């Protein structure tokens, strides 16, 4: 009886079928994660009375119902928005010795532009009938402008990309000492170019 010494074999032939069944189930019931997007913080409801802001520190953008863009007083293509926003934010118009003087700005230092990135406010108004796609595009371009400036400073000061620092900071695997260090760096750069994006009504002083 040679049979007695052999191990009884489990038939694995149908294993593939079972696995396929499971695979198809997951393919059907699941969607690939799309949970990415643009983060924004809404202003709190009880706002303090409107502050007078100097016109030169305000960058007005409006989007009309035909998805056309008006920046300050001119019609602009959305492609040019990013560079226009960078030029405005990075202007640093305050003169040397002034308390608002910006020593890291590389802009034109035009006296009609913003004094300091800390003072510069972008005001974005959108018509109710504008498409959400265009709205997100404008938001995306403005975020890109801030990211580019922050990235420039981050490379200059710490020789790393700003987004890379943020990514490491939010990574749960990063050690807490590294996180503390990164937190200081990130907040320093964020304070150099704080994101001041307003969607409130602004009254023009004529």
């Amino acid at each position, binding site marked *: 009886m040679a049979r007695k010494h052999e191990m009884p074999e489990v038939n*694995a*032939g149908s*294993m*593939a079928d079972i*696995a*396929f069944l*499971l*695979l198809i189930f*997951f*393919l059907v*019931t*699941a*969607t*690939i*994660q*799309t*949970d*990415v*997007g*643009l*983060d*924004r*913080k*809404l*202003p*709190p*409801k009880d706002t303090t009375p409107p502050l007078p802001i100097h016109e030169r520190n305000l960058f007005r953008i409006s*989007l009309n119902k035909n*998805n056309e863009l008006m920046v300050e007083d001119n019609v602009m293509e*959305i*492609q040019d928005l990013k560079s226009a926003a960078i030029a405005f934010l990075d202007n640093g118009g305050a003169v040397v010795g002034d308390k608002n003087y910006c020593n890291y700005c590389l802009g034109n230092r035009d006296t009609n532009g913003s004094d300091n990135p800390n003072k510069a406010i972008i005001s974005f108004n*959108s*018509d*109710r*009938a*504008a*498409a*959400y*796609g*265009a*709205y*997100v*595009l404008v*938001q*995306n*371009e403005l*975020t*890109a402008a801030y*990211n580019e400036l922050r990235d420039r400073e981050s490379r200059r000061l710490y020789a790393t990309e700003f987004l890379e620092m*943020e990514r490491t900071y*939010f990574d749960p695997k990063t050690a807490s000492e590294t996180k503390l260090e990164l937190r200081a760096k990130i907040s320093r750069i964020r304070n150099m170019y704080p994101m001041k994006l307003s*969607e409130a009504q602004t009254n023009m002083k004529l």
Partner: protein
Amino acid sequence: MKNFKNTKSRVPTISTASLPDIVFMLLFFFMTVTTIKNNTLLVDNNLPNADQIKRLAKKDRVIEIFVGEPSPELAEVLGSEPKIQLDNKLANVIDIAPYVLSELAKKPEAIRNLVTVSLKVDKDVNVGIVSDIKQELRKVNVLKVNYTTYEGDAFTNMK
């Protein structure tokens, strides 16, 4: 040498023993990269593209609001005016504040101020309805929002 003649005439078979392994590998891949859809969409939800994106925090810290035109079957009854979907039903702007508060109450107290509202809005919807939603969120002091998008070139939104 007795079987030699037999083996020569047989077609060599392909071993399928490793097939289950391959399929399991695929299975595990899909299990890890996917999330199970927990609500059926009643509205069209073709999100816009953006490239300056941030990954959304953990799933338990997110409240989702869908906005879009009703799906084709529902559009016959409801018309094609954009609608808001909360959980599994269509709602109006005034329902948002109570819904967000009730969702917030379900979360553990420690993470309540970390909750983000994910606005999943179709790219063809008008901005008006989105700003109405934002006003409602401000009323209940839920201020962190995320304009959820797909990852891609933002300029394709205009076409």
